[in-house]
């Protein structure tokens, strides 16, 4: 795996190069290293992931891409269900498994999301959210190589996810690798518009993405109904 070693070296070099930058956000004590990894990811994205995703989107009809998206979304449902159960949301967890059952059969291995049409709504859960629900704090912000924004808590969740991901069971390895590549290409192609928006909206993309990540995770952990932020951060609301 010389390629993997090369990439690892590049990530480490990028992380080290960023270390000189001093941050001032208490949630991001490793800002220097994170910015380094962020720049590495950005380069990888600009020169590889985004062009590949663009070609993928241009070549394949949206109907076909929807089938690919549904297939991978279906594979995720059983563990979304596990996470709902771990958070005590039994009804939601049950729904996720019903979804998996219907979509894997009637939906032809998940390529058709028949469950949504039947009224079983898809959920969005992961191990990081479960830990958060259990009261585990986010910990320092962490930019993961290739995967992007995370925190120490969510990073641990990602590691657990990687071990429970059904795609790792695929054999032989070459088939597994192509499946992983297809999944990431699909994911990236779905985010092409969003990443363009980020570029346009942000003054400092690193900061914008980081803050959006913290806001998003907070909302996800509380299923879209987070409690009010502590008062000390409240802005002046009397505007005239």
């Amino acid at each position: 795996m010389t390629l993997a070693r090369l990439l690892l070296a590049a990530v480490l070099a990028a992380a080290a190069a960023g270390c000189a930058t001093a941050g001032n956000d208490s949630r991001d004590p490793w800002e220097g290293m994170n910015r380094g990894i962020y720049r590495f990811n950005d380069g990888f994205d600009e020169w590889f992931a985004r062009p590949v995703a663009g070609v993928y989107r241009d070549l394949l009809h949206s109907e076909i891409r929807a089938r690919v998206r549904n297939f991978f979304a279906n594979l995720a449902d059983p563990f979304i269900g596990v996470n709902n159960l771990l958070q005590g949301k039994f009804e939601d967890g049950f729904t996720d498994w019903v979804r998996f059952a219907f979509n894997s059969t009637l939906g032809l291995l998940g390529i058709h999301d028949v469950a949504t049409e039947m009224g079983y709504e898809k959920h969005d859960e992961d191990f990081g959210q479960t830990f958060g629900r259990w009261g585990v704090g986010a910990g320092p912000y962490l930019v993961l190589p290739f995967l992007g924004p995370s925190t120490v808590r969510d990073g641990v969740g990602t590691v657990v996810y990687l071990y429970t991901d059904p795609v790792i069971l695929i054999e032989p390895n070459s088939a597994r690798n192509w499946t992983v590549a297809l999944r990431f290409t699909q994911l990236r192609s779905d985010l092409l518009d969003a990443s363009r928006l980020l570029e346009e909206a942000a003054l400092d993309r690193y900061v914008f993405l980081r803050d959006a990540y913290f806001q998003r995770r907070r909302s996800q952990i509380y299923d879209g109904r987070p409690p009010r932020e502590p008062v000390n951060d409240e802005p002046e609301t009397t505007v005239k």
Partner: protein
Amino acid sequence: MRNLLAAVALACLAPAWPAAAQDITPPDVLVKNVTLEVVDLIAKDKEIKSGNRAKLIQLVEVKVLPHFNFASMAALAMGQGWNKATPEQKKQLTEEFRTLLVRTYASALAAYSEQKFEFRPLRAKPSDTDVTVQVRVLQPGSQPVPIDYSMEKTASQWKVYDVMVGGVSLVVNYRTEFSNVVRASGIDGLIRELQTKNKSLEAAGKK
């Protein structure tokens, strides 16, 4: 003297008239009408569909912009720093922030591809002056994306002062960025940076 009193009384009453319930479009109805109208206009317009960004921005300015309170948005994004700004700085900040948000909004609309909307019933008392209007964007195979419009009642109409997409508040998300720039180069530095950003986006849009 009696005329003067009458005039004062009228002047005091006048702002109260538009507040009568039947004159102000309720916030949830407003969001629904504007959303459906804009989406419909985009769907019908061949030039916008084929990527005419200038025309899309114009559409946003005419149809969407009047329903936003950009001074409130700029103030919320600035946080504590807003009170330290002079009236002229506030005006410029509002103006530049407005330009940036209109452009961002247009880009978000450009990415729209016939998803369906679900307009949720408004949970508010008739006396409320600050409400959240909830819309969900539905797409098969994914969890619905919630869009929450924070709206405040002004004398003549309801106005949006924040948009939350998937739990991410647009205004709050600018707060750290703004305060970083203000700390490093002051409020004028922030105005300059916003101007530069808007100019580069404008230049990129013309290509």
